[in-house]
Structures are given as structure tokens and as C-alpha cells.
């Protein structure tokens, strides 16, 4: 189960979100802007959905090939984990520890 990391500065808009990783501000000094597909994935990272659930919802919403969406979602989540923007409760021992891989 993945969830958004705590301590982020965030500006949520109807179709986009702007994030700043405050706990890592010394290494990540610029804001991230998620729009389009990245926004669709980000909004579904709520601590209740698994990666598979997120893929299912996007396949249903957009009708794109499942393999393609599954690949994109996995890559995106892995990058978010690496940056510490999300936390994988199944793989992380504690808050803020980013796991290198998610299932």
C-alpha cells in the first residue's frame, strides 16, 4: 500500500498539484508540478489503494492497454518512492523511508 509522504508542501488544484519536498529541501529545492497522467496517479495515492488498484482504475477510466498503463504507473511510483514523495507501508519500516521497489 502506498501513501503520500507527510511534510510535503502542496498546492492542490482541480487538475494539477504542485509539491515541494520540504523534508528533503536541501536536495530537492524546486517544486514538482503534476498534471495529466501524473496528476491522475498522484490523486489515487491515498493509502487505501494498491498499485494494482490504481492501474485498474486508470485502465477503466482511459481504456488504454493494461500493460502500458501498468508499466507507466510502476515507473512513476518507483520514482516517487526514490524521491521520498510517497511511502510504501509494506516495504518501509518507518515514516519517510523510501523503499527501492514496490509491488
Amino acid at each position, binding site marked *: 500500500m502506498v501513501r503520500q509522504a507527510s*511534510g*510535503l*508542501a*502542496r*498546492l492542490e488544484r482541480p487538475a494539477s498539484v*504542485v509539491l*515541494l519536498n*520540504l523534508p528533503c*529541501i*536541501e536536495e*530537492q*529545492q*524546486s*517544486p*514538482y*508540478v*503534476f*498534471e*495529466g*497522467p*501524473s496528476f491522475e496517479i498522484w490523486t489515487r495515492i491515498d493509502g487505501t489503494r494498491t498499485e494494482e488498484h490504481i492501474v485498474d482504475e486508470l485502465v477503466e477510466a482511459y481504456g488504454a492497454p493494461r500493460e502500458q498503463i501498468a508499466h*507507466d504507473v510502476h*515507473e*512513476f511510483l518507483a*520514482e*516517487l518512492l526514490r*524521491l521520498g*514523495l510517497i511511502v510504501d507501508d509494506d516495504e518501509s519500516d518507518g515514516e519517510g523511508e523510501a523503499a527501492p521497489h514496490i509491488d
Partner: protein
Amino acid sequence: METVSPGSAISPDDAWLLLSAVAAHVAETAGVRALILKGPVLSEFGLRSERQSYDLDVLVPRDELSDFLVAMRKAGFHNTDSDDIWHDLASHSVGLASAAFPLSVDAHYDFPGLLGDQAEWFDSLWRDRVFVEVAGVSCSVPSPSDSVILMALHDLRTPVTHRLASDSLRDLASRVSSGSCAATTDEVIASAARLRALGSAGRFLAQLAEGVAAPHLEVPRTRLFLWRVRVALGGRLLGVALERIALTGPRRGVLLLARAVWPSADDIRGALPPNARGTGTLAGYRLMRLVRGVTTGGRKARRQRSADTIRARQGHERGVLRAGERGEAS
């Protein structure tokens, strides 16, 4: 599918909100008491209509400024270079900019018009502060009534936009006296007394109620006199600098002057972007300050802010462009 990468341009309004969150987070982590001033918070208090902010103003105690600046530099900010000697002497804040944001941060360590001991009035502001959530982060801001006094003093000391400042003062007084904002007249007067601003904010307070201004209650009178000289000189750098030197005291005043005339290499390095800190640059920078210092004493202090903002915006645009050139912009 786009990758996760920074570099997208953000609007000045969003930048203000994020910068507030950055300043609050950095200050808290560094153990610094920082108050976010002005900006959209004032609209929430009903103290003014919504308008764009051109920089983020943060107020910190003078003896915590150094820690705050160090922490902000670690977060990617560098000092905006001051133009010359007079600007340094007249300044009551340190400008900070980052290529990641189109706005600069002004870290204030003094607030002209608050005539009492700095530590005392900051403690008062801090004690009465309220918390406002900005970009998901809890930020400390002065209470509505304290904010009214700070707004009034800001307008009263900026004669470069005299008509606008007068209109702004009138509007503020109208909002308070009509009860359409989060501060009542009694609260504002009490704030002025606590912050030792009855005399300096007298022209504003007189619009709220008769017989409020009582400068004789405030000590020392020298400060009120210097404030009036400063306002009478139209906010010119020379007058503001003289006020600051006089308030600093003879020994520290001389040190202040010496440092402004001949800043240390560390001071200059802190004012320059990392890629422009060579020995030749330091010498050229000192010379430029001396030359400019001869001519700018008669100019008005307000112009420095717009120059800083322009520089910060240019830096931001360059930063975005560089990210785009590397194919990193999302």
C-alpha cells in the same frame, strides 16, 4: 508518460504560498522564530483586497537572523546583492533569491516604526501570533490587530508611493472602523501601545479614533524624532541610513559603516551567485559599490525591492530554461 522532474514554471501567487511553507519549515527546523508578513494572509483577515505579492516578507529576531540565513542557504537561496553602501546601511532586511522561484524572500530583522526594544516587540508579536495553514504547512503570522499596525507603518514610511500609501491607509482605517475585518479598533490601539507604535502610527490611528496618538508615552523620544526625520526626508536612503546608524549606537554604528564601505569577502560571496565568486569579481564588486554609493544616497529606499524581485525572476526564468534544455522539465 512524463518523468518526475522539477523545473516547471510556477506562478508568482503559487510561489508566494510555497515560499511561505519553505520559510516556515526552514525556520522551525533551525529553531528560529519566523513570522510571515503581509501577502494573501491579509486578504483572509479582511485587511485588504486580494492582490499579487511581489516578494515574501519574513520577520525574524535580529539574533536569530544568522541561523535563518544559513538554513535558507542550505535550502538553495543566496543573498540578493545590494547595490551600494547606502542600500546596505538603510536596509532592515536581507534579500534572498533562488532560481527555483520567481519571487524573492525579504528576511526582516527590524521593522521601522516599532520604536521600542526590538527583542520586546518581537516577543509581543510572537506571543500573540496566529497560525495559518499555507500550502499545507502551519505558518506563524502576526495577529490581525498587529498586522494592521505593521501595514500602517509600512504605508506611512513609503512616501515614494505617497498617494497610493495614503489611499491604502484610508482603506485600512475604513475596514477597521467599519468592523469588516478581523481586528477591532480597540484591539488595534492596544497593539499599537504594546508595540510602541502610538507615535509612529499616530497619523493612521487618528483616523480610527480621536486622541489616540500619545507619543509622550513612548520612550525613547529620539526614536520618534528619527522616524519623523526619515518620513520627512521622503524615505531617501541617506535619511534611512542615518536613522539606522543613530539607533545602532556609536561603536556599532562605526562598525556598520565600515562594513558597508568595505564588506568582507564572506559578505560578498554570500551576496553573489555561486558561479560568480572569483577574486576578480570580489574586487570589482567592492569598487562598484563605492562608485554607486557616491550617487545613490539621495535615492529612495523602495527601489531596491523591485530590483531584487526582477533579479529573482530573471534567475527563475534562467533556471527553468536550463532545466528545459537538459530535457528535464516536465
